[in-house]
């Protein structure tokens, strides 16, 4: 019983291993990068645009609106990071319809790497928005006694991000594998559809939680609230 795509070895040379996680991650990167490059070759600003460009615009404006709803005022600064997180995890889950494919997020290495990216990005955005002193002061925000608890909460929510995504993806593939040995076609197909749904929900959750953490780190106390520019 395979616990993760780490154990699918495609090619080995000494201690260098090309396992399933790496190969499928490269495949996803290829699809995302080449796909968007091909679609954005000839962008049109008029009313007449190709269907693929329309699709990409829907996705991008949807993510921008979500980021703004969370409370980040200039979503252009954050959409590169947050949008990539969402698209990668969502595509990794969607591609399970392809036979022979295992989502790379079903391996703890991938999800730990993504959670570490969020762990590094939150202070980066916080320092960029509030300055080093302002950001560090947020750790002692209510009282100085809260300092160890704030630090512990930073570490534990990173761990929670990694384990949550890993657990959801791994359980989906494992339940499918177990069911395939027990019952024939219908029930595993229903479970596969459920796995797709939870994969999309988990992609959304991962990026929204990252957005919420960044919003908490970049929150600047203003005396006068900024007017809502677009809604």
């Amino acid at each position, binding site marked *: *019983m395979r*616990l993760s795509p780490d154990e699918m070895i495609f090619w080995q040379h000494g201690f260098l291993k090309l396992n399933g996680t790496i190969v499928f991650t490269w495949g996803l990167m290829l699809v995302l990068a080449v796909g968007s490059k091909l679609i954005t070759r000839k962008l049109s600003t008029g009313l007449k645009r190709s269907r693929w460009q329309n699709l990409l615009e829907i996705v991008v404006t949807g993510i921008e609106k*979500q980021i703004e*709803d969370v409370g980040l005022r200039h979503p252009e600064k954050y959409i590169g990071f947050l949008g990539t997180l969402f698209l990668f995890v969502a595509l990794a889950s969607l591609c399970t319809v392809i036979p022979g494919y295992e989502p790379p997020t079903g391996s703890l290495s991938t999800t730990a790497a993504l959670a570490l990216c969020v762990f590094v990005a939150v202070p980066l955005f916080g320092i960029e928005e509030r300055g080093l002193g302002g950001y560090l002061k947020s750790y002692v925000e209510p009282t100085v006694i809260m300092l160890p608890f704030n630090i512990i909460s930073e570490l534990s929510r990173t761990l*929670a991000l990694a*384990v*949550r995504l*890993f*657990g*959801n993806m*791994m*359980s989906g593939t*494992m339940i499918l594998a177990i069911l395939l040995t027990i019952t024939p076609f219908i029930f595993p197909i229903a479970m596969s559809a459920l796995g797709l749904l939870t994969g999309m*929900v*988990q992609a*959304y*959750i991962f990026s*929204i*939680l990252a957005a*919420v953490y960044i919003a908490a780190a970049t929150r600047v106390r203003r005396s006068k609230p900024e007017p809502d520019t677009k809604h």
Partner: protein
Amino acid sequence: MDNMTLIAIASIVTAGLTIALGSIGPALGEGRAVATALSSLAQQPDAATTITRTLFVGLAMIESIAIYCFVVSMILIFANPFWNHVIAQTAGK
């Protein structure tokens, strides 16, 4: 009862108990969360998107507890270090 049997019994029983007890709390919590979200949706349908998004985020946090228990259960069944150690011992003997 030798070591191998003892470790096997303990792992199996603990794995079953972990996931059984560990899914009670999150299930109850999620039920309450969805019920409250539905009643506030009925009271204020305009805030539907905010309520739905907050509901999903809350559900994900509650679900994580069940996921932790599931991961421990899976480790006990499939990647059990004590079982591997004792198997290596009997294989080496």
